[in-house]
């Protein structure tokens, strides 16, 4: 059983600091797991595991949703926020702005849970912060 499959089972059973995790594997050649964190489930987290890391990604919006004249300002703010934002960073993947967290594949279940909750909360905050820059 792959690590992600194992996580699908274990995460589904856990209650971590009042949050539960609703897991749904996404079909395709790359193993991807959609995780909805209870109370923060409007922004799903997508997990995928590579040779070197467990990646957790929350897609915020498409790049064109940000006002063209505000893009530079947004990018700068994201870079400035990156260090302070707990456990997560901003990034662009394909055509999406995302916040993501990366963990070592050897991370404990507890660390993964904390990552997921923190990332979902960060995504909520990030969306709210982005609101004034949207088209």
């Amino acid at each position: 059983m792959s690590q992600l499959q194992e996580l699908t089972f274990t995460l589904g059973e856990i209650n971590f600091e009042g949050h539960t995790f609703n897991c749904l594997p996404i079909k395709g050649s790359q193993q991807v797991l959609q995780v909805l964190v209870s109370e923060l489930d409007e922004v799903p987290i997508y997990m995928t595991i590579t040779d070197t890391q467990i990646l957790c990604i929350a897609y915020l919006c498409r790049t064109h949703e940000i006002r063209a004249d505000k893009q530079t300002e947004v990018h700068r703010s994201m870079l400035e926020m990156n260090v302070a934002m707990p456990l997560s960073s901003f990034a662009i993947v394909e055509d999406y702005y995302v916040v993501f967290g990366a963990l070592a594949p050897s991370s404990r279940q507890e660390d993964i849970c904390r990552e997921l909750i923190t990332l979902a909360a960060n995504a909520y905050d990030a969306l709210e912060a982005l609101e004034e820059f949207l088209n």
Partner: protein
Amino acid sequence: MSSVFDKLWTALRGGVREIGDAIVDNNGIRIFEQEIKDAEANIAAAKRSLTEVMANKMQAARKVDELSQSIRQNETYAEKALAQNNEALALEVAGKIAAQENDRNEQQAIVTRLEQQIEQLKGHIKKAEKLIADHQRELALVRTTESVQKATEQVVENVASNNSAMNSARESLERIKKRQEMRQDRMAAGDILAAEMGDGTLDSKLEAAGIKGGKADASAVLARIKAGKTQ
């Protein structure tokens, strides 16, 4: 490191490629993996010859030690022969010592040469190991980029069409706000309900003020019965 980083950087920038196009083709990755495997095989071979060279060096060093010991022994013999004024015997021993010293110099030269070889081999191995580590990091970089790309495509394909998950930021925010309002409403409703169920209701105030009839009271009932009234 910089070469792959540069390539990725260039590939990712400025819409050089369409969504779905691989950044580094699979063939490229396979070649890269093969290079790593080859380098690892080379290191393994270098380590094997290193142990051999080290064993040879130890052997030569042992010979040097043995010869030195034997030379010292022979020197005492020569001294003793001289003490007995046996010049001829002393000379014979001295001849043996000279031959041993030549031998020892030869062996010492071998030790020195092997030591240099060992240092060289160690250097090669270290360099190759660093190269492999760098290659592996580069490969991880490329692989991760590909994984994330693929994952995103799958999410977009599978989720976006039939689910709100990949909606625009506006829609997400709308939903988040609605949920927050709902939660606040629920909390407010909870407060109201708590107040209605508790002491603060109008009924209890009226009762407290004696305006509205209170509960049946045992002494009042008894008094009524004593007074001969029935209800």
